[in-house]
């Protein structure tokens, strides 16, 4: 079946540092969406990409437009409030089902 492999599963960053999360897809995907899950469980949409890159403040996301087999989420100058669990979800080209990655638990420390 479709698989979304998200890495790393957990990440600890010092304030002010940069890092990147990645999702690899075992099949070609049409689009990808990145979320942060807040403490109440709600998903906050960060980016939706059908191709290329998008940037919002300290966050930047890219979706491999050629092979459509991976996406990245870059966090620049990490802040304490960036802590949380991040998920990617990708839509299969054929059936459009949205499949979630396993999530990345990010902890930013002072």
């Amino acid at each position, binding site marked *: 079946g479709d698989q979304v492999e998200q890495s790393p599963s957990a990440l600890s960053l010092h304030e002010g540092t940069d890092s990147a999360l990645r999702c690899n897809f075992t099949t070609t995907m*049409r*689009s990808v*969406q990145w*979320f942060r899950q807040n403490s*109440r*469980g*709600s*998903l906050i*949409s960060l980016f*939706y990409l*059908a191709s290329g890159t998008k940037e919002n403040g300290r966050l930047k996301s890219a979706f491999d437009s050629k092979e459509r087999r991976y996406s990245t989420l870059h966090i620049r100058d990490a802040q304490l409030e960036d802590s949380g669990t991040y*998920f990617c*979800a990708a*839509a299969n080209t054929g059936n*459009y*089902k*949205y*499949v*979630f*990655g*396993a*999530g990345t638990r990010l902890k930013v420390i002072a």
Partner: protein
Amino acid sequence: GALVYQYPRRTICKSGTSMRMECQAVGFQATSVAWYRQSPQKTFELIALSTVNSAIKYEQNFTQEKFPISHPNLSFSSMTVLNAYLEDRGLYLCGAREQLNTEVFFGKGTRLTVV
């Protein structure tokens, strides 16, 4: 803007009873609605994908008999968890989109506790 209201936000039901959750789309046409479950410490599992005027497609391990879904129009969908037991606890999310190749808007989730 596009929003999805999901309710209730949390519910507690006795083992063996049923509960229903609903999603209302505002600001766009919810042509396609997907229901997910996040079990404790896990990721989001797709339960079923519903498209208006098409059959609802359930994923393996999920059935219509256990999770009946209604999607009667372009703004509303509901799902019931029948005969809920401990393994059904978790956070249930609906995600709706206007077209199959557009952004998915999620509700805030319904947290189900079974006692």
